[in-house]
């Protein structure tokens, strides 16, 4: 009976995977960060599959062998308290698996948080990505360009997205390039990624943020460095400058298509980092200043 259930679930899983003509986004990485997570996911699926198979086989075997209908009427099951050896095994093996996966987890987490291996020597290109209800604003301080709901990336160059939000917490996500990171109103978070293959990749806010959440998407397009430079030049010569007035208009709740401007909003509306942050953490000068103040308070109380 359990066998039937297990078989059905397994069959569904296989058929649905086979039925999908295209590989699943998360498992179809186009950059080193997403590749790391995809590898970790496959590794964990295989490890976990072993556990599931062991448990289900034990269950099927035991239920089949010790079902009442097969046993003699007068069979009295024995009283068994437990056995130190058996219990050490059922504790020991899971502990080993957990230790193994803990190492995988910590190592891969450091990997995806930092600039990917092989790209450490390059200076990352900084792009600010700010969410407002229900749009994404991308600012290129280096190129002095701002785009709305789409972002163009040069391939094979580390990108550092700096994320924040006007309003609800959102989660910046381009599944084929890297995992998510929250964007919040009172601080800036960072996410590193590299696109290794040119192409269009779906991006979205993955964290529920109200009425327009479902359509809070953007496209990330990876271009070769030459094409990227061409794109920058073209924008510089054709797009209109972004004014403060226009930007306030863009921040109004709603959905807008893709737009492009020269200049960035960072000039008149800086990101909540450093001295503009809601909580002044991470800033070394500030830290020292605060410590001084605290010491001062202590002195005061001692008197």
């Amino acid at each position, binding site marked *: 009976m359990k066998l039937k259930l297990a078989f059905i679930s397994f069959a569904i899983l296989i058929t649905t995977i086979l039925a999908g003509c295209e590989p699943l986004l998360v498992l179809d990485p186009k950059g080193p960060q997403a590749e790391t997570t995809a590898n970790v996911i496959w590794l964990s699926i295989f490890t976990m599959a072993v556990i*599931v198979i062991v448990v289900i086989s034990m269950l099927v075997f035991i239920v089949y062998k010790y079902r009442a209908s097969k046993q003699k009427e007068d069979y009295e099951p024995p009283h068994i308290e437990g056995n130190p050896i058996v219990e050490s095994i059922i504790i020991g093996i899971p502990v080993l698996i957990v230790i193994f996966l803990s190492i995988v987890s910590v190592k891969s987490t450091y990997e995806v948080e930092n600039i990917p291996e092989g790209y450490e020597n390059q200076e990352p290109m900084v792009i600010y990505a700010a969410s407002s209800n229900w749009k994404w604003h991308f600012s290129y301080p280096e190129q002095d360009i701002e785009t709305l709901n789409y972002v163009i990336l040069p391939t094979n160059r580390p990108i550092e997205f700096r994320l924040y939000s006007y309003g609800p917490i959102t989660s910046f996500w381009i599944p084929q390039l890297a995992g998510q990171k*929250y964007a919040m109103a009172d601080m800036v978070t960072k996410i590193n990624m590299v696109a290794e293959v040119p192409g269009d990749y779906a991006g979205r806010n993955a964290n529920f943020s109200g009425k327009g959440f479902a359509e809070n998407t953007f496209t990330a397009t990876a271009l070769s460095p030459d094409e990227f430079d061409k794109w920058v030049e073209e924008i510089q010569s054709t797009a209109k400058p972004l004014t403060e007035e226009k930007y306030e208009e863009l921040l109004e709740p709603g959905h807008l298509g893709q737009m492009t401007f020269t200049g960035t909003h960072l000039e008149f509306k800086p990101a909540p980092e450093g001295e503009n942050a809601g*909580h002044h953490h991470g800033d070394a000068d500030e830290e020292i200043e605060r410590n001084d103040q605290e010491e001062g308070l202590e002195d005061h109380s001692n008197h």
Partner: protein
Amino acid sequence: MEFFERFAIPHPSPLIYASMVAIGLTLIAIVIGITYFNKWGYLWREWLTTVDHKRIGIMYMISALLMLFRGGADAVMMRLQTAVPDNAFLDAQHYNEVFTTHGVVMIFFMAMAFVIGLMNFVVPLQIGARDVAFPRLNAISFWLYFAGAMLFNISFVIGGSPDAGWTNYFPLAGTDFSESVGVNYYMWSLQISGIGTLMTGINFIVTILKMRAPGMKLMKMPMFTWSALITNVIIVFAFPVLTIALLMGTFDRQFGTHFFASTNGGMDMLWANLFWVWGHPEVYILILPAFGIYSEIIATFSQRNLYGYKSMVGSMVIISFLSFLVWVHHFFTMGHGALVNGIFSITTMAIAVPTGIKIFNWLLTMWKGKIRFTVPMLYSLGFIPLFTIGGVTGVMLAIASADYQYHNTMFLVAHFHNVIIPGVVFAMLAGLTYWWPKMFGFMLNERIGKWGFWFLSIGFVFAFFPMYITGLDGQARRMYTYSEATGFGPLNMLSFFGAGLMAIAFALIVYNVYYSFRHSPRNVGMDPWNARSLEWATQNPVPEYNFAVTPVVNSSEAFWDSKKNGHQLFKDKITKIHMPNNSGMPIILAGFFFIFGFSFVFSIWIGVIVSALGILGTMAYRSFENDHGRYISEEEIKETEKEYGGAK
């Protein structure tokens, strides 16, 4: 007129108006029905004012089933809306309200109530007590829960439902982005029922520690009682965090403070932290009693003692401890860096070890057993593989780097339903079927029950397994729609099909109650399942005083030992029994709390003041009340026992 405008629904739809009419008609029908059959007096004397743990337990479970249907209707609406791409059945706002209420209702008002209901019914019986330690407090707990549940449920017809998700993250849940009173309802209904839950926690800890039958040492308690004890310890530590978080949220929304605001020194992620400091232990508040139930059922229907009793207890203690050390895994993506994520990733995975011990102990309990496939056992057998799959996907989610890809997707939705449904819902249905004869003196029909089980299990697989795949394909949770180009369509349709099967299963389960009520033979005797623990040593259904004579216990399977090993449970003679009196004070107090919450939701301060005075007045009245309870005479007990025993 202006006064009444605040009660209007901000986002009306024909569906809501239809529900309004349905609610109105049902209420009228109930009132007319009770009046026609002249049952008001019976209802008031026997149920509404009762302090009997068994009746309170049953009322909890009836409420939980009602809430299951409310939350289930929400679920079917969600799956219907997302069954095909670009569906227009629900708009975004309505969908947001529906998934918010689905989550809140299922966790707080269904699962919690079901768990507490079963604990109420079973725990005092399992430890050989006459009632819980504080029977009247127990009634207050129930009525506060009920007031909270009702307050939450009227939100969608008066003033609008909450729409910020059951996790209610700020600043989305703040007044800037959620203007209607919906989130106020969330705050107050959870606050009121949360106070009830906290009191339940205290009540059961005292009950289990102080009121066990003579000879029942801690390590001789039945496993369900152990799980209840640990659960209630978690409740007492976790719920105050929720209380404070809700209060801070209320202050932010209604008095303009900035605890969770992103300006003026507030911190939006503080809510997320506080919520999950409560929220993760909450998961174990739900699952540990379920583990307890499975332990009882698997032992009974394998006709064997529970394997590894000590490691079962130990693993629960470890789980309860670890449950407070993992909350950050709910937002690995917050940006607190690899070190913090690494630590919480490891603590999270560590929980898999004690949970794994339990799974293997259940398997080893069946080893050399004599396994009978009754309905409760089928649920337990279905639980093991399905929960294992849910558990291992939990380990996958615990790997922080991979979680960056799973977070906020349907993969996560699949995972937590995969642990909660086979874990908690199956356990509740198994427990309900198992203890049903104790409650009502007849059995539920096995054949219909088995049909229900199969529909539920297969429906579950169809409904939730596809979500693992769409999640990995990039489908975020809580999206009211998606375009055809995403390719999510067919798998979502499959989910909807599964949800349909589950709906049929619940219809079958309810039909089974009706069918068995009509057709099942009465007077099933003391021990219809050939069970092992102490609660089966008294009559079915259980008399008001539980045990005519306090039992003497010397093992965790006292009843089994009395059947097989000649242990004598009842040594004393029948004497008069002291019982607490019924009281109308709990329901009146909860009524005031309901008015208090409702008035607060709409900032009607006069209502708040009056009901607050009512609450204080009721409590003051109780403080000065002189009530020493009453005695059931020896003759009455003997007669009752004869009546039950004679019918065997």
